C-alpha cells in the first residue's frame, strides 16, 4: 500500500464525512426535516472514496439515486449538500434537485441521478470528450447491482469499448435492488464475467475495505487513463439502511444488519488496517471524527437557517436563454 500519511487521513475523513452525513440525514428525515425520497449510502463509503481518491476535479463522476457518498467523495461542499437536502435556495442546486440530483459540475460531479442507469451513457459522453480533447481525464459512472440490468447500462458499456474511451464503470453490489436480491435479478451466475464479456477488464474489490477498493479502482482508472479503453470495478458491500428511509427491509436475513455493521464497516476496517502501522494513530482518527461531527452539525445548523426558495424561482434555471434576446 503506497498511501502517504496525508492520503490516509484524507481517505478516512472522507469516509467518516459520508457516514456522518448519512446518519444525520437519516435522523433528520425521521424528524420530518427533509422531504422527498432519500437513499442513504451508509456502509458503502469505501467504494466512493476508494474510487474518487484517484480522481481530480477535471475527471468526472456520475452517480445514482444513492448519490451523497459519491458526491462527497468527489469533493462536493457538504454544507451546500445539506442545504440542498433541506430544499433551501442556498443548496448546491438551489433546492431544485434535492437528494436525487445533487451535482457540482465545476467539481466534475455530473450529478446523482433518479433514473436507474441514467448515468452510464452520459459518463461515456464525458469520456468521449476526454478522448477527443486528449486531456487525460477519465469519466467514472457508478451503478448498483440492480442498475446493471437496465438497457442503457449495457449500451454504454458497449459504446465505450467501441469508441475506446476512458470510461470507468464502477459496479457496487450491495446485494439488493430495492427489495430484490441480486441472485434473482441478475440472471447469470457471474456478473463480473457478464460485464467483462463486453470487452473490458473488471477489477474486483472488497467494498467494505478502502484499501481493496483503492487498489482495484487504481488499476481500472490507470487502464482507462492510459488510453486502453474502458475498465470496470466490481465491489461487494452492504448498505446499512433500507433502500429508502422507512423501508421495512423484509428481505434481510435475521441478524444481517447487525452482521453488516459489525463485520463490514469500512471505518472499523480502516482503523484495524492502520492500527499499529505507525503512520496514523487512533487519536488522529478520533480527532477527525470530532471534526467531522462538528462539520455535520454546522451543516445542519446552516441548512436550518438557510434561505428558503421563493415562488418566482420556480421558473428560473430552465434555460440559459429562452426566446430571442
Amino acid at each position, binding site marked *: 500500500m503506497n498511501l502517504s500519511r496525508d492520503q490516509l487521513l484524507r481517505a478516512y475523513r472522507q469516509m467518516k464525512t459520508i457516514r456522518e452525513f448519512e446518519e444525520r440525514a437519516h435522523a433528520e428525515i425521521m424528524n420530518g426535516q427533509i*422531504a*422527498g*425520497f432519500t437513499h442513504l449510502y451508509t456502509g458503502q463509503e469505501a467504494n466512493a472514496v476508494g474510487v474518487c481518491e484517484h480522481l481530480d476535479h477535471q475527471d468526472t463522476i456520475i452517480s445514482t439515486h444513492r448519490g451523497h457518498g459519491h458526491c462527497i467523495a468527489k469533493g462536493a461542499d457538504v454544507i451546500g449538500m445539506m442545504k440542498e437536502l433541506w*430544499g*433551501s*435556495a442556498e*443548496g448546491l*442546486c438551489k*433546492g*431544485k*434537485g*434535492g*437528494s*436525487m*440530483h445533487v451535482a457540482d459540475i465545476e467539481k466534475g460531479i455530473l450529478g446523482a*441521478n*433518479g*433514473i*436507474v*442507469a*441514467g448515468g452510464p451513457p452520459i459518463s461515456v459522453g464525458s469520456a468521449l470528450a476526454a478522448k477527443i480533447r486528449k486531456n487525460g481525464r477519465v469519466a467514472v459512472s457508478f451503478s448498483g447491482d*440492480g*442498475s446493471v*440490468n*437496465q*438497457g*442503457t447500462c449495457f449500451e454504454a458499456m458497449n459504446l465505450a469499448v467501441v469508441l475506446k474511451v476512458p470510461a470507468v464503470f464502477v459496479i457496487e453490489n450491495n446485494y*439488493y*435492488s*430495492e*427489495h*430484490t*436480491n*441480486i*441472485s*434473482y*435479478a*441478475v*440472471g447469470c451466475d457471474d456478473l463480473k464475467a457478464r460485464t467483462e464479456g463486453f470487452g473490458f477488464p473488471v477489477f474486483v474489490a472488497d467494498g467494505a475495505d478502502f484499501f481493496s477498493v483503492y487498489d482495484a479502482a487504481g488499476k481500472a482508472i490507470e487502464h482507462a487513463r492510459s488510453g486502453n479503453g474502458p475498465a470496470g470495478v466490481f465491489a461487494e458491500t452492504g448498505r446499512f439502511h433500507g433502500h429508502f428511509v422507512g423501508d421495512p427491509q*423484509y*428481505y*434481510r*436475513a*435475521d441478524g*444481517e444488519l447487525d452482521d453488516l455493521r459489525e463485520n463490514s464497516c469500512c471505518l472499523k476496517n480502516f482503523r484495524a488496517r492502520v492500527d499499529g502501522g505507525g503512520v496514523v494513530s487512533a487519536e488522529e482518527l478520533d480527532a477527525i471524527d470530532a471534526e467531522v461531527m462538528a462539520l455535520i452539525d454546522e451543516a445542519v445548523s446552516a441548512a436550518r437557517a438557510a434561505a*428558503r*426558495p*421563493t*415562488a418566482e*424561482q*420556480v*421558473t428560473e434555471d*430552465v434555460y440559459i436563454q429562452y426566446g430571442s434576446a
Partner: protein
Amino acid sequence: MPEKTMRDAINEALHQAMAEDDSVFVIGEDVAGCNGSPSGKVGEVGGVFGVTSGLYKAFGPDRCIDTPISESAIVGAAAGAALVGMRPVAEIMFADFIGVCMDQIVNQMGKFRYMFGGKSRCPAVIRFASGGGFSAAGQHSQSMYQVMTSFPGLKVVIPSNAYDAKGLLLQAIRDDDPVLFFEPKALYQEACEVPDEMYTLPFGEAAFVREGDDVTVVAFGQMVNRAAAAIDALEADGISCDLIDPRTSSPLDEDAILESVEATGRLVVVDESPPRCGLTADIAALAADRAFHALKAPVKQVSAPHSPTPFSPELEAAYIPDVEKIKTTIKEVLA
C-alpha cells in the same frame, strides 16, 4: 358502503380480476418483493406503493412476477403475453420511467393492431404512479399521461378517486385494447366509499363532479379535488360551476365537455402537467373549435409552468396548481 383508499381499491380490483380470470397476471419491479432474498419472505412487499400487496400470496409466483430493473423488457413482456392471449397488468413504478420504455409502449403495444391490419389484440394494462406532491423532483413527479394521449392506439386512464380507480381498472383489464393507467400518487391514501363487489366504469364517459351554470371546469386526476374545493369555495360568491372529470383522456368524452360549455359559455381546464401540448390545451382547443359560438370569455388553462418539477416543498407547492389559482382563474373568466 365501506370507505377504501385508492391504494386499497386498486389492490382489491387486482385481487378480483385475478380471481375471476386466470389469464390476468401482474409483472413489475418488486410487485411481489424479496425474491432471491435470504429472508425467504417472497411476496411481502407488494410494490413500492403497496398496490400489489398480497397478490403473490394469493396467486403464486406465476401470476405475480418480479423483474429486474428493465422497464422496456417489462412492457415488452406484457405486450407479448397479451398478443398471445393473456391479460397482463404491468407496473412501471413511476410514470417518469416511460422515458426508458417508451418505444415498447408507443411504437409496439400501441401500434400492433393498426400495423397488423386489425388482426391482433393486445389487452395489456400498464399501471404507473404519476404526478407530483412528494418533493420527488424532476424525474419522479411527471404526469406523462398528456404525452401518452397523443399516441393513437393507446387508451389513457386517469382516476381521481378510489371509486373510479376500481371501476376503471376492472374495465382496463377486461378491455381488449392496450390501456395505460395513471395513478396520481398523491391520491393513494385518499379514501371514499367503494363497493366490495366488482363493477366497471366505461371509458370515454366523464363524471360530473359538480353541476352548475356559470363556468365549465374540466380537471384531471389530482386536480379534480382541488377544482372541487375551488368551486365549493366560490359558492359563497354565488358562482356555480360544472366540474367535469373526463376520467379517460383517450378516449375523451368530448360531448360532455361540449354540452357543458354550450350551457355555461365559459371554460377553465386544469391539469398539473406543464402547459405545452398538454391536456389543458387539447380541451381548450376542442371548445374553441366546436363550442366556439357559445363561448363568452377566453378559455383559460391552469397548469404547471413550463419548468421541470422542483424538489423543494415550497417550490413544488408553487409549481402545482392550487385551489387559489383555480379560484382566481374561474373568477377571471367571469370578469
